[in-house]
């Protein structure tokens, strides 16, 4: 019953659209002359003066009962693709009541969600036809950023709890209450719009865009991606650089090591080639971030103690308070077998072992005690 109603509603909608002449044009000023404004909800920084031109691609995205809509590349003035975009018009149906949702979606070069723009002329609306307020758009942005959202694994009808005793079946029956976890992540009163948008953004198109990028991959593009602060890009590039490129870009890689997310840092330590560990100069910038980096990465770095130069081993004796219990054990064990244990390190150890505020001071005391034996 509900499906046939939906179909009728869609038909009526499409009829209306045909008369209106399809997707409404933008009022925001993304014209044929290119995009000069940062998308309103966006994950990248936007350099002033940026002008991106739309360029056709072979990709398109399938919209429920509306057919294929094109995915375009956004190309900068140097001719490089920096984003993908699509002006989407899609029906959103809840309990047989269908409306059109117009939204301009942006993807990264790897098919990740990059942002969206709303049409001034066609704001998003909720189930009760109220327009989205700014906070609602922001919440939608947060939702679309979450590529592992609960919306991913559920069909729409699994996301709503049907009222225990439905008051009345039919067009006007209230949509069931959304379950708690879903409620927290979607715009209140707009589950269906959120669901539709999430699946458009994070659906099959992701892989297609990534494949397209991979098919045109060259060193220039790798470098371009490495220079951004996007962790997906960084991971993607770090997995593809040759040993020589690791050396070539070591300054940038060490910078990412300092400021990147833990996942990226971990990958860096795991992937740094022997040539870096063999060179005092090349590895020092990585050790230089020791205090700032997360604990997991710090442990991995300590795994390279035996390749570290004397200056690093000495330096670490001033950073005992930053080490966790097990890291401290690793460091002390290394010292007990290394030739670097000199009076200056010993002094640092003694100072640390007598510092009342240091939770792990006792470990260093044990160590010093054992040394005396």
């Amino acid at each position: 019953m509900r499906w046939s109603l939906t179909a009728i509603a869609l038909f009526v909608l499409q009829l209306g659209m045909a008369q209106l002449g399809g997707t409404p044009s933008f009022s925001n000023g993304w014209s044929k002359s290119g995009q000069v404004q940062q998308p309103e909800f966006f994950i990248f920084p936007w350099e002033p003066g940026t002008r991106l031109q739309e360029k056709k691609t072979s990709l398109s995205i399938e919209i429920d009962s509306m057919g294929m809509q094109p995915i375009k590349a956004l190309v900068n003035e140097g001719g490089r693709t920096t984003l993908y975009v699509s002006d989407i018009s899609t029906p959103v149906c809840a309990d047989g009541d269908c409306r059109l949702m117009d939204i301009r979606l942006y993807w990264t070069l790897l098919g990740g969600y990059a942002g969206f723009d709303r049409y001034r002329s066609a704001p998003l609306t909720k189930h009760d036809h109220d327009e989205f307020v700014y906070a609602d758009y922001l919440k939608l942005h947060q939702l679309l950023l979450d590529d592992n959202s609960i919306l991913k694994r559920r069909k729409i009808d699994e996301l709503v709890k049907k009222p225990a005793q439905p008051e009345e079946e039919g067009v006007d029956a209230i949509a069931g209450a959304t379950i708690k976890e879903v409620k927290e992540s979607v715009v209140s009163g707009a589950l269906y719009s959120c669901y539709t948008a999430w699946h458009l953004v994070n659906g099959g198109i992701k892989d297609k865009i990534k494949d397209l990028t991979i098919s045109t991959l060259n060193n220039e593009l790798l470098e371009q991606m490495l220079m951004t602060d996007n962790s997906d890009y960084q991971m993607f590039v770090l997995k593809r650089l040759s040993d020589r490129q690791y050396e070539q870009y070591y300054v940038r890689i060490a910078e990412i090591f300092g400021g990147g997310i833990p996942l990226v840092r971990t990958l860096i330590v795991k992937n740094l080639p022997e040539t870096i560990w063999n060179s005092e100069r090349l590895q020092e910038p990585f050790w230089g971030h020791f205090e700032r980096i997360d604990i997991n990465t710090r442990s991995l770095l300590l795994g390279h103690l035996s390749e570290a130069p004397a200056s690093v081993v000495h330096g670490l004796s001033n950073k005992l308070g930053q080490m966790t219990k097990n890291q401290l054990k690793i460091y002390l064990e290394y010292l007990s077998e290394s030739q670097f244990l000199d009076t200056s390190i010993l002094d640092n150890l003694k100072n640390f072992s007598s510092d009342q505020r240091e939770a792990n001071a006792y470990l260093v005391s044990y160590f010093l005690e054992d040394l005396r034996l």
Partner: protein
Amino acid sequence: MKVFFQIFVSIICTLRLGWCQELLIEAESFDNPGGWVVDPQFVQQMGSPYLMAHGMGEPVADASTTVRFPEKGTYHIWVRTMNWAPGDWQAPGRFRLKIDDRSFEKQLGQRSGWGWEYVGAKEIQHNTVVLSLVDLTGFNGRCDAIYFSVQKEEPPASPRKVADWRMQLAQEPNAPEELEAYDLVVTGGGIAGCAASIAAAEQGLKVALIHDRPVLGGNASSEIRVHTLGIYGHFERILKKLDTEHYPNGSAEAKLDQKKRDDNVKSYENIDLYLNWRAYDAVAENDSIRYVDARHTRTGKRKRFSAPYFVDSTGDGWIGFWAGADFSYGRESVNTYDEDWEEWGELWSPEEADNAVMGSSVLWGSKETETEQRFPEVPWALPVAKTYEEVNGEWQWEFSRNDLNQIDDAEAIRDHMLRAIYGSFANAKKDPKNATRKLEWVSYLVGKRESRRLVGDHVFTFNDAKKGTKFPDAVVQETREVDVHYQTVLENEQNPDFISEALFYKTPRYYIPYRSLYSKNIKNLFMAGRNFSTSHVGLGGPRVMRTTGQMGAAVGLAAVLCKKYDVNPRDIYTGYLEEYLDLIESQKYLKIPESKK
């Protein structure tokens, strides 16, 4: 009074060439633990079960015991304890020692790392005194033992030395003197161990089930409160005796299923249930286990268990570990078993192997009350909780960090979670809307997900799940998605480090072969539960407790045939598979009693 652990030793102190009197009181053996709980989870790391004042912020009732001194005199007193959250604040778990009616001034629980704290000297004028532990904070103060000596010489601190010292003091021989013989010895009474015991006992084996808690079920017990997921496979009849309803994790409803489970296991005459017994060693000769040694968690009494076959269902693979079984820990590199899932890349399976595992949880909850409820300031918790606010904790409250081993560092992991919980709750209490909220329950047991995985003839992998490989020896089946967790802090350092996220991979029905349920190199060792033979990603699906229960039931039946033909677990696969599969198939139906035939 437990005389056993009130060891009075008069030994010649060679250094001083005189007689000295010492007395070691194990806190877990106190006559009356009061509001303190016995915590035996970390014996292998810190040396002993201990008493802990788990009062969720309200000081607990005193623990007390009567001590008999053979000699009067002035004694120096030390307490073995630890400040579990050291830093620039007052230690969270402080307590005092009291002898008869007099408390010592010294607040205990202040040193970092397990070791001795000097309490003071006391003249003992009567042969019998009452010793009490007076909790001052309600925040997990801990006391392992109390040592009296007429000499002012501190006992050793390092865990290894303390173990030797204890043995010497107790004059314990290496091996336990009491020996019990069984057909099958099962260690670890989680759902897997219970199912193994029932399946074997129903077919007539005499079974010992050694479990270190007072109640059965492991993570499904009312002490940890995780509900059981997964399907029953061939073992619905057995598993329904053990599983739970689908209440939310952490729910008090776990108590109802607890009674059902305990009653059911106890109803088998040929299962000898050793509750509150913790295995501490497995002795193997020629790659076969001969004994498992266990100790009572309160009295300290020891027993040696012999059997032709053993099941390791400890979750942590302890029996295998002690016996020298091959095991793995951490994540294999993506190419080891070709377990790539491109969408999640490194989070799913890393290019290079590492020691990341799914984390452990401490479940907890609070409730609304009629009146205003105060909660103390917890400065020692805030470095972990930061500004996070919460009033309940579900499965996402999970902690794993690569420098911490889920077994060796389990106490640090549990304590980290306690800080996360108390801190987040204290933050939430600052909001007037939570004025009448009160902590209702915080577990003190670590609910583990992954640690040692013993290696069998087959290592179950993600691909086995993804493809639904139909093994000839498939004995366990599951339809649940493979879900693998990671700490959200890996993606964003602003996130708390104690919250995880799950990645789900939908699979067809998949099967676990019998070959993943016995050790590759220890001839008479079965394993069931999350320590079965699997890769890290492979564990993602079948770690849930109806599936681990299926594994238990499957090995229980395999043990029956092993005994029947006097062969080892591997021989069942090579020589008796058909009979074994038939036996499994027959489990669906209740046997008709002889009298009714």
